[in-house]
C-alpha cells in the first residue's frame, strides 16, 4: 500500500485553473465558474443553449481535467479492482474502458466512474469524488500501488456528430475505427495523445488525455482542426443537459455516497439506481456482494427510473404521487429537463417500492414561479426507457463524419 506524493501548494489558492484555461479564457463571455474537484471550472462560456446544441449538432469541447484520476498499478492491480468494483475486471481487455460503480460492505454505492485498462498491470480509474482513502484501505493485502494523478493528466471531452471528423482533420489516422469504450494511442506534433471513445453526453464523442505541458499546443491544434466544423468550448451547464438526455446519474444528485450519508436509508444500492447490468454476482467476491445477494433475495427499497411528464414544464425536484389529488407520495424527481432534442419533458425519478412496477398511476407535482407568483400543476407521467436520447452514431463503427 503506497501513497502518491501530494502537491503542497494548494492552500495558497483554494481553486486552481486548468492548463487549458489561458485559451478557454478567450471564449469566456459570462464569467461564470463553478468549483469542481478543486478546480475553477467554466459553468457557461456565452449561452447554455448554443453550447448545448454544439453537443448535439457539431463538436463541443469540454475541459475534463478536474475529473479525479487514479493510477492503479502492480501485479495485483486486476485482482484489486475486481474486489473493489461491481464489474468483472478480468473481462476488461487492455485498451478498453468500463463504466462501473463501487460499493461499501452494505452494498451501497460509494461512487461511480470509469476504469481504463492501460495494460495487464496498469489501470486508470476516473471518479466523481475523491476516493484515495477508500482505495488505500481497499489495497490492504494486495500488491498494488495507488497514485492520485489528477493534476498529472490534462483531458478534453470532444463530443458531438462532427467529433470524429475533427479528429481526422487533426491527423489521428484510423480514429473512425475506434469502437465505443476503445482506447487508442496517437502521436501528434511529436507528443503522445491517448484517445478513448467515451463521454458523458450519450452522443458520438471522444475523450482526449495528455501531459498538461502539451495542453496549450493541443488546444490550438484542435481549434484549427475544428474550423468550419462548428467546434466550440462548452461549460458545465450544457453538459448537464446532455447528461440527463443520456440518462446518466450524478453523485449528490441521483445518490449520495454511502460513505457520506448520515441519515438512515439515504444510501443507494446499484440495483436501486437501476444499474443491475453493472453488477456481476458471478465473478467472485467483491465489496458489497454478500449484501447485494441478500438485497436481490429480499427486494430493493427503491428504484431509479426514467420518466416522461406531460406538458413542457421541467419537473425540477417534483414529488411524485399515485393520484392527481396527491393521495400518497411514491417518489421524487432527482434530475429534470425539457429535452430540446427529443422534444419531451423528461426526468430521472427515485420511486419507492413497489411503485416502480410501471402499473401504478404517477403524477408529478410541479411548481412554477411566474413573475413572483407560484403556480402548482399536477402532471401525469409514465416510466420510459433510458437513455432518452440515443442516436445511432454513438455506436456506429466506423464512426460517421456527421
Amino acid at each position: 500500500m503506497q501513497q502518491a506524493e501530494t502537491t503542497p501548494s494548494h492552500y495558497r489558492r483554494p481553486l486552481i485553473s486548468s492548463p487549458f484555461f489561458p485559451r478557454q479564457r478567450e471564449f469566456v463571455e459570462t464569467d461564470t465558474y463553478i468549483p469542481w474537484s478543486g478546480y475553477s471550472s467554466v459553468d457557461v462560456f456565452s449561452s447554455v443553449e448554443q453550447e448545448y446544441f454544439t453537443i448535439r449538432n457539431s463538436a463541443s469541447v469540454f475541459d475534463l481535467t478536474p475529473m479525479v484520476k487514479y493510477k492503479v498499478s502492480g501485479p495485483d492491480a486486476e485482482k484489486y479492482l475486481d474486489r473493489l468494483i461491481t464489474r468483472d475486471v478480468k473481462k476488461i481487455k487492455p485498451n478498453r474502458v468500463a463504466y462501473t460503480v463501487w460499493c461499501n460492505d452494505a452494498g451501497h454505492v460509494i461512487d461511480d466512474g470509469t476504469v481504463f485498462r492501460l495494460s495487464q498491470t496498469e489501470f486508470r480509474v476516473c471518479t466523481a469524488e475523491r476516493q484515495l482513502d477508500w482505495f488505500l484501505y481497499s489495497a490492504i493485502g494486495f500488491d498494488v500501488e495507488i497514485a492520485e494523478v489528477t493534476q498529472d493528466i490534462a483531458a478534453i471531452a470532444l463530443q458531438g456528430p462532427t467529433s470524429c471528423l475533427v479528429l481526422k482533420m487533426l491527423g489521428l489516422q484510423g480514429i473512425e475505427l475506434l469502437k465505443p469504450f476503445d482506447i487508442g494511442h496517437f502521436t501528434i506534433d511529436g507528443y503522445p495523445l491517448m484517445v478513448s471513445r467515451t463521454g458523458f453526453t450519450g452522443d458520438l464523442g471522444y475523450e482526449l488525455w495528455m501531459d498538461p505541458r502539451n495542453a496549450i499546443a493541443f488546444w490550438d491544434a484542435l481549434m484549427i482542426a475544428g474550423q468550419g466544423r462548428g467546434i466550440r468550448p462548452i461549460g458545465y451547464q450544457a453538459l448537464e443537459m446532455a447528461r440527463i438526455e443520456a440518462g446518466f446519474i450524478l453523485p449528490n444528485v441521483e445518490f449520495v455516497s454511502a460513505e457520506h450519508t448520515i441519515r438512515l436509508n439515504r444510501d443507494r444500492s446499484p440495483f436501486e439506481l437501476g444499474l443491475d447490468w453493472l453488477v456481476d454476482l458471478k465473478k467472485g467476491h467483491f465489496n458489497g456482494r454478500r449484501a447485494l445477494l441478500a438485497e436481490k433475495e429480499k427486494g430493493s427499497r427503491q428504484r431509479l427510473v426514467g420518466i416522461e411528464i406531460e406538458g413542457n414544464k421541467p419537473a425540477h425536484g417534483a414529488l411524485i404521487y399515485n393520484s392527481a389529488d396527491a393521495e400518497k407520495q411514491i417518489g421524487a424527481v432527482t434530475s429534470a429537463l425539457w429535452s430540446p432534442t427529443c422534444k419531451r419533458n423528461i426526468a430521472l425519478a427515485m420511486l419507492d417500492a413497489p411503485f416502480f412496477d410501471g402499473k401504478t398511476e404517477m403524477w408529478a407535482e410541479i411548481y412554477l414561479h411566474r413573475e413572483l407568483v407560484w403556480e402548482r400543476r399536477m402532471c401525469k407521467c409514465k416510466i420510459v426507457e433510458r437513455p432518452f436520447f440515443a442516436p445511432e452514431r454513438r455506436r456506429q463503427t466506423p464512426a460517421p463524419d456527421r
Partner: protein
Amino acid sequence: MTKNVDCIVIGAGHNGLACAAYLAKAGKSVLVLEAHSQIGGAAATREFAPGYSVSSCAHFLHGLPLKLITELDLVKHGLQFAADSLPTYSLSAEGNAVKISNGAVSGGLLSEKDQATYTAFMKKMNKFAAVMLHILNMVPPRLSLEEWSERINMLSIGWKVRTLGKRDMREFLRIIGMNMYDLLTEHFDNELLRGAIAMDAALGAEHGPRSPGTVLNYLYRLAGQVAAGKNGIAQPKGGMANLSGALANAVTGAGGTIRTNAKVERILVANDRVSGVLLTSGETINATSVLSNADPQTTLLKILGTEHLDTGFVRSVHHIRNRGLAAKVHIALSGKPKFKGLSDEGTPARLIISPSIDYLELSFNPSKYREVPRNPSMEISIPTLADPALAPNGKHILSAIVQYVPYDLGADPKAARETLKENIISTLERYAPTIRSQITAFELLTPKDLEAEFGMSGGHWHHAALTFDQFFFTRPVPGAAQFETPLPGLYLCGAGAHPGGGVMGIAGRNAAKQLLRGGK
C-alpha cells in the same frame, strides 16, 4: 491427499483446544492444526535454560472456570495443580508487605479501616464481577434485534444488572467506565494495597491505572476469579503445559485429532464459503467449518486474505488495537530467593511489585514514548516453591510479568533490552537484596518476542486490547462479534473473540457454542 472433517481448528492454544473439545464432545469430527512442534500456544511450558522449565507466557491460572474443568472432565484428563488458592503479597522495600488472601488483607501497616473497607469492597466487586461473568459467558447479541432470541439476550444483561439492587446497580454503572486510580483512592489509604489492586487492572492492559476504562479490565479479571471459584489463583503442575495437555486429552478423548508441525498457509474458499485449509506442506484438508485460534488480524488479513472480505470490514480489522505492553522474564536462580517481609517465606505465593498507584502510573509513562520503565511493575511467581521438578535440585526459578514494556523499543532495541534487564534486576534487588548474586540465567521476552514466539499480532495476550470499544458486541470488530466472520463457515475462537484473553478458555467455549447452535 485430501481429507474431510467437519471442523478444523487453527492453532492448539488453550482456546483452540477448548473449542475443539466442545465440538468433538458434541459429535463433530474435529482436527486441530498446530504450526509449532508443541501444543498450547501461549499456555505452554518451555525450557529456557538447561534444566529450567517455566510457563512461557501466563504463569498463574486465575480464571480457569470450574465449569470448563467439569464439562471437559479436565481432572480426569490430567489437570493437576501444584498449588491453588495462592495468596498475593504486595511487596514493600521496607519489609511491610501486605498480604491479600481469601477476601481479606493483613500485615504491613494496614489500618483497621482499610482492612474493613477491603472486605466490603471485595464483596461489592465480586457481585459486579458475577454480572460481568454473565456477559463473558454469552454469545454477544446482534444489535439488529430482528430476532427475539437476540432481544432476550439483551434483556438478560439488563436484568442481571437490575438484580444487583438499586444501590449497587447505580454503583456498577458509576464505576464501570472509571479508572482504577480514582476508584481505589476513594476506598483505601494504604499505598501498597492500592498498588497491588491496581496491578490487577494493569496486567495485560495498554493503559496505566489513571486511564479511563481500567475498571473494566479489573472486573474482567475478577470475573475470571469468580469463575475459577475455589481454585483461586492456581499453578498447574509442570507449568501451563499441564493444562494444555489435559485439554488435548479432552479433545482426543472425545474423538478429535491434533496435529503438530502443521502450519496453515491459507484458508480455502469455494463459492463464498470456507472449504478447508491448505498447509505449508502443500496438503489440502477439506472442512465444513474452520475456527481460528490465531488473532483476528493474522486470521483475516494473512491466512484468509482480504480478497474474500469487504473493505470496510478489513479497515476495522486493520485498526484493531493490539499493542502489547507486557513482557515476560524468566530467571534461573542458584537458590531460594529471599523477599523482605514475607510472613510465611518459602511458601508459594503471587508477589506484586507495585508499591503505590503512582509507582504503577510512573512505570507506565515511559512506554508512551517507546522507552522502557526505570522502575518496572511486576507480577512474580517462584514456581519451583510448589513444583521443585521444574528446576534442578535445590535451584529455583523466578517468573515475572513485567508491565509496560513497549512493543517498539525505539532506535536502539538492543541497548533498550540491556537497560530493561538492569532495571528489572535492580528493582528486584530492592525487595530481595541478595537476588543478583543468585542469577544464573536470564531470559527476557518483550511484546515483540511474544509476537514472534506465539504468532500474536502486536504481542498482546488478549489479541485485541480489552477496552470498551473492543469489548462484547464490538469484539474484535463489528461484523465478527458473534464469532462468525463475514465469510460463511469461518469462526474466530481465540482471545481476540469475546470475551478476550487470559487462560480461561471461554472464547473457545463460546465459539463452539455458537457453531453448535447452528451458525452458518
